[in-house]
């Protein structure tokens, strides 16, 4: 009987020990990161309020964003295509995933996503938290699965520590992975370009070319590339050369609406200097090539954007105007954003 008591006491001591460990883990100072919404930016995507970035949530998200074990053969991370020095895009024509597999479209930059209503070229994703799974499982991207990813990282101390700091315990769940990556991405706000400093009257001014370019831009580009994000977030068919893949249908791929055929989300022009080539599958090697194409005339279509239709399927631009517009667009480059 005494022996039994001794054994029971021993277990009780063990139990109380582990209880103490748990209670030590729970309180952790994990403050929200203020997003510092730039002046004139559109309202936040509603999902941000349900997943506000926190210090450790975003730190974990950043680590996961750079985690090559997200891919089946541990070679590709999110950052492989979304490279900070390229405004979180890359310079490939179409995205290149595991084993050199080529994706359907050009990699979109990751910036100011907290203010976007739609994600990707066709707007198939409306909440950023729903995006990370897609590249993880896609054959041409990471070709893995979320449980495979979790199996690979779950025993690593640094992850356990960050999951505990971010979410209160060490459980590594799919949802926490998606939420932390989205938190990190919400913090990636680019609003410190020369354009912004001129606008904020910080003592900088446009050069003559830039100023002329800005005026031309407002007349010939800003119908679509509007707001402080330089996109009105609409979907338009602007008659660009067509992706030969039978899988491509533009916005109609998602909506099934015939009028959305080959419509694509108007891309933001912020940091566009860093993200060549351009177009949904990298049709244009340079900004100049895009402007030349608009000037020469675009492909006709039933649902070609009305603005182009009204102007003979083109945006006429003089040599000087092209040079000026490119000078202006380069003032949208945020060198501090890409160098962090």
């Amino acid at each position, binding site marked *: 009987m005494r022996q039994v008591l001794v054994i029971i006491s021993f277990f009780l001591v063990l139990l109380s020990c582990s209880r103490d460990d748990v209670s030590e883990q729970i309180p952790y100072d994990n403050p929200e990161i203020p997003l510092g919404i730039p002046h004139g930016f559109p309202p936040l995507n509603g999902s941000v309020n349900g997943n506000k970035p926190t210090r450790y949530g975003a730190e974990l998200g950043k680590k996961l964003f750079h985690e090559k074990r997200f891919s089946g053969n541990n070679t590709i991370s999110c950052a492989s295509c979304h490279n900070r020095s390229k405004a979180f895009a890359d310079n490939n024509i179409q995205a290149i995933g595991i084993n050199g597999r080529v994706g359907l479209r050009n990699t979109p930059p990751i910036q100011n996503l907290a203010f976007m209503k739609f994600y990707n070229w066709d*707007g*198939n*994703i*409306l909440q950023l938290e*729903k995006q990370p*799974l*897609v590249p993880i*499982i*896609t*054959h041409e991207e990471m070709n893995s*699965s*979320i*449980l495979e990813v979790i199996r690979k990282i779950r025993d690593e101390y640094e992850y356990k520590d960050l999951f505990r700091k971010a979410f209160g315990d060490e459980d590594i*769940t*799919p949802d926490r992975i998606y939420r932390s990556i989205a938190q990190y991405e919400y913090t990636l706000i680019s609003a410190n370009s020369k354009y912004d400093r001129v606008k904020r009257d910080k003592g900088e001014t446009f050069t003559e070319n830039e100023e002329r370019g800005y005026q031309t831009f407002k007349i010939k580009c800003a119908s679509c590339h509007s707001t402080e994000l330089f996109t009105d977030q609409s979907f338009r*068919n602007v*008659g660009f050369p*067509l992706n030969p893949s*039978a*899988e491509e*249908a533009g916005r*109609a*791929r*998602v*909506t*099934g609406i*015939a*009028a*959305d*055929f*080959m419509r694509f989300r108007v891309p933001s022009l912020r940091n566009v200097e860093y993200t060549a080539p351009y177009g949904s599958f990298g049709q244009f090697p340079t900004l100049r090539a895009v402007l030349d194409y608009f000037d020469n005339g675009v*492909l*006709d*279509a*039933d*649902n*070609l954007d009305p603005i182009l239709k009204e102007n003979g399927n083109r945006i006429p631009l003089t040599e000087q105007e092209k040079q000026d517009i490119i000078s202006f667009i380069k003032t949208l480059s945020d060198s501090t954003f890409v160098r962090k």
Partner: protein
Amino acid sequence: MKKQPNYLSLSLFLLVMVSCSKDNDNPVANNIALHFNNTFKNTTIVLGDATSSTATANTSAEGQIHHFSELKYVISNIRLIKADGIEIPYHINNLDQGATVVNQAKPQTLDFVLRNVPASEYKQIKFGLGVKPELNILDEARFPNFYAEAGANDTEMHWEWGAGYRFTKLEGFYDSDHKEISIHTGSTVEGTNGDPDTYTQGVDAYRDITLTLPNHAIVGRNAPKITIKADFDKLLSGKINTITLKSKTGGNSHSDDSNATPNVTSAVQMVKFVDNLGGNGSSDITGIFSIGSVAN
């Protein structure tokens, strides 16, 4: 040690109880075996590659000869309706237990056994072609078995960019020059279709099927077998749409709605195929499906 005799008597008591229930003439539950018979009209389909001489060929209402090399679809959300009208759901919120991929290339997938169905007489069966929107999110952690079954390399029923499941995947050939047919269906819907408060975009390709049994399936001492016929003649020559396949000629314009591209891998032109396969939810709630037989 003193207490062991008590355990022994308890065990004996339980054994007696168990044997009693075995003797019972009216078990509380039994299985229903579903068998899927995939046909062109009344002929069970044989798959084959482009030039196969053994593949089952079919001619559409518009005269297009076609056959399949791949034929797969997802069945889920199964409900059995008792003679008194009460609906018995079969793991409708658990894809691991209540959903399956029917794959004509794998004979074992043509049979799906519903286990422990309450003893009763059943007059109808309802099921979904595809996965209902609230479960259609590729949640590997929640339903690892169905996720793995659907995602297997020889099955390919993950619709990655749609972050959901493919509901049907039909590959094949048409016309004498064996042009490719590739019809993939799946949902892209955000919110609830038809509800303006939640609907934001996309197509809901899930279809609810209701089939009335020609004779009651009587679950009790026997385990009935219900053969469900899926007549793929209706893919092109359906109750909703009569489809002519027309290869894409290129161009930047949306396609002529009177014809259908033979390559459907997104929401574009998908609905006319979905409605033929699974009905439109109102005037047609059977699509390609009918009851072949109910054997008690």
